[in-house]
């Protein structure tokens, strides 16, 4: 009988981190994944904590951590494990040749394609804004035919940002000439730059419009691979500093992160089953023995010692909302939600308040084990990570990938510590 030490349900950031931690500790790990996760939607940077209330951003993620409520996942995980998870993540990135920068004591304010600055914590070095703060002239580089990146929107909005109002702004455009029948996305431009010919072509076109020494904001197009080859080549050839914006999906920076993490866990021998819709579990005496997938043909049973639930909350199918109740379908874990579902949503969409539904999820202990209403562990060998957790509104707080990272890490460590 085949059996894994750890079975991870979900292949997004939380699941991949959990798998990485467990596999690095020598565990036999299998990921059951339905869909490719959401890293390529909004990924690429790790927000840890930007806002606690709706009035003003926190000064640093660490300062924000002092203000969060007891039910917040970070409170369960603890700052020590959060910092360990960041260290673990940055070590992976550095080892894979795509180092990230940032820490809990500094807020990274990265430019967005809408001309705003967004608070985050860990970023690839192509989003390092140190030079942007210093420069008195900002160049915004756009690509002809590229959808969803309009340089004038950035320059128009940037002048309203404190610290950016006295800078001079220039817009330059280059034509990648790759349209060929469809809307051009940042992903298409990045793929163009992946090729030696595209990189050469782009360098030549940029040389005509960029002066050496320029600080240049551009869409996330500096290659799809998790390395700095494109950024380094352009910076060397043009003697400019390039800063990629956060942008709309498909996310190039998210694709880099996903590619890197998948490559890393597979190198550690983590198994992967795609199109695996986990629908139920086999539980005996407070312990999970196996989980079962429902294929279009038949069910398949996967046995394991430990199980990590990281299948993405409402969006990933990890939580299912029904009138008056929210269900966790695989283990039937307790999910506390107001019985009047009218109370789940804050109908004032752009208010300074979080959304109640976003905070609905599974309560856990410090090891990420699910808790019942009595505060006792429901299943001793099941651990919960990422969006299935209760007590945070990632969108409001800017904390999504941070919670995924830290809780994934904590789950992975818990499967390890349990065996000792």
């Amino acid at each position, binding site marked *: *009988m*085949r059996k894994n030490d750890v079975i991870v349900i979900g292949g997004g950031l939380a699941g991949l981190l959990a798998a990485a931690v467990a596999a690095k500790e020598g565990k036999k790990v*299998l990921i059951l994944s*339905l*869909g*490719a*996760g*959401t890293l*390529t*939607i909004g990924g690429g940077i790790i927000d840890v904590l930007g806002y606690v209330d709706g009035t003003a951003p926190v000064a640093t993620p660490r300062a924000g951590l002092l203000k969060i409520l007891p039910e917040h996942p970070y409170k369960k995980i603890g700052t020590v494990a959060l910092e360990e998870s960041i260290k673990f993540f940055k070590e992976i990135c550095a080892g894979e040749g795509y180092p990230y920068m940032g820490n809990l004591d500094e807020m990274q304010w990265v430019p967005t394609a809408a001309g705003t600055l967004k608070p985050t914590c860990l970023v690839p070095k192509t989003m390092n804004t140190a030079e942007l703060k210093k420069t008195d002239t900002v160049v915004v580089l756009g690509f002809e035919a590229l959808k969803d990146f309009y340089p004038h929107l950035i320059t128009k909005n940037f002048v309203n940002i404190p610290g950016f109002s006295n800078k001079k702004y220039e817009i330059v455009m280059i034509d990648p000439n*790759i*349209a*060929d*029948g*469809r*809307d*051009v*996305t940042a*992903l*298409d431009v990045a*793929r163009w730059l992946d090729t030696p010919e595209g990189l050469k072509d782009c360098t030549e076109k940029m040389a005509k419009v960029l002066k050496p020494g320029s600080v240049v904001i551009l869409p996330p197009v500096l290659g799809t691979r998790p390395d700095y080859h494109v950024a380094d080549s352009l910076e060397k050839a043009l003697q400019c500093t390039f800063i990629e914006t956060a942008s709309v*999906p*498909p*996310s190039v920076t*998210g*694709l880099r992160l996903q590619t890197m993490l998948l490559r890393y866990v*597979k190198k550690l021998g983590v*198994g*992967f*089953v*795609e*199109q*695996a*819709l986990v*629908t139920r579990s086999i539980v005996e005496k407070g312990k999970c023995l196996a989980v079962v*997938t*429902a*294929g*279009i*043909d*038949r069910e*398949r049973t996967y046995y394991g010692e430990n199980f990590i639930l990281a299948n*993405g909350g409402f*969006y*990933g*199918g990890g939580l299912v909302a029904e009138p008056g109740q929210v269900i966790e379908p695989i283990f039937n874990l307790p999910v506390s939600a107001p019985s009047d579902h009218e109370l789940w949503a804050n109908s004032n969409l752009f208010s300074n308040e979080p959304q109640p539904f976003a905070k609905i999820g599974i309560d856990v202990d410090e090891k990420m084990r699910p808790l019942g209403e009595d505060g006792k562990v429901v299943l001793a060998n099941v651990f919960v990570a990422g969006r299935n957790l209760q007590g945070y509104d990632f969108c409001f707080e800017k904390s999504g990938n941070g919670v995924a990272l830290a809780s994934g890490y904590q789950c992975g460590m818990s499967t390890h510590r349990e065996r000792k």
Partner: protein
Amino acid sequence: MKKHFNNPDSCTACTVCVAHCPVSAATNKFRGPKMVGPTLERMRLSEEDVEPSLEYCSNCKNCDMSCPSGVPISTLNMLARANYYKTRKQSKRDYILSHGEQAAKMASMLPFGAAIANLGMSMSRGIMKQIGISDKAPLPPYASTSFIKQFKALRQQSYPDKVVFYPGCFINYNDPGVGMDFVAVMQANQYEVIVESDLVCCGSPLVVNGFLDEAEANAKTNIQILKKWTDQGIPVITCCTSCGLMLKQEYQELFHIEGVEEYAQHLYDAGEFLLELYDKGRLNTKFGALNEQYLYHAPCHLRAQGMGLPSLELLGLIPGLEVKNADAGCCGISGNYGFKEDKYDIAMKIGAPLFQKIKESGLSTVVSECGTCRLQIGHGAQVKTLHPMTLVRKSYEANGQ
């Protein structure tokens, strides 16, 4: 919960499929899975809406695999293509590529038919190019004796445990050795193999070129024959992952045939079936050592089946054998897609990272379940290829079985 609800409204337009579509990465002529699939399907439901770039979808199913919301995007594309051809006629090229079974049958009926057809094929590449089949494409030659004929001439040991083998066109007409290897492996596991000679093409090559009605007729024929066995609980096994996907999944997604769900429960990939025997302690594990190294390529149509990579796991049981997963994405061929003159370059571009990885490995042989993947890999990376069952048989034989 089953996944064959072709509801375009499940799509949230998140673009994960766009990031994972190999065709979109290879050509900007394709408007991408999200747009061509669910987005335009909403339009197509209300009025005829023709999207010229639909022809670029290769039905490789990487969009379906990446979708966080369970939308069968490629199936929406295939249904739209079928709808398009309801009022139009396919090209001669697409007819020929979809009806390989007819040509193969004719060749196999004549004495020396395969040899003559192969000679004809090599001489007529110029004519094929004129009708739109690439003269560079790795078209498979016919085998001199089909699998069915070889199987009929074989004397099997009879056992109470039986399985039905669905060879599919490629194994039957082009690569019968794989089928014979499978039979030998099952015999070594004390199973008797049943082959039904009235089975027809699974329909996969028909679906991709819009011959949906013919595919449905084939589906009905196959299900009728196979159901006789599956109703008795006798498993049906495929060695071709595209046949397997079609027989159990796409039949359910594309057609409404009674009893298909019950029948699908008994369909197995060969590797998966043997691994299940292993789990039950029923697998013959007297594997002889094979001190060899290979690279493995996972066909997209296997990955789409939600069972991981069973053959790779199975080969891991053979002592001495080292098989590493190339894990470099789609090979590009997608059935008959890469044979087409206007798709050949796209297919080769899609496969380029895989070919590169194979070359970097320094290994001379790649293992993969899919026949057309193997053709493309042999062509693109200039290496030998073989089916996992060939190695399993070899291992048993190395132990004198």
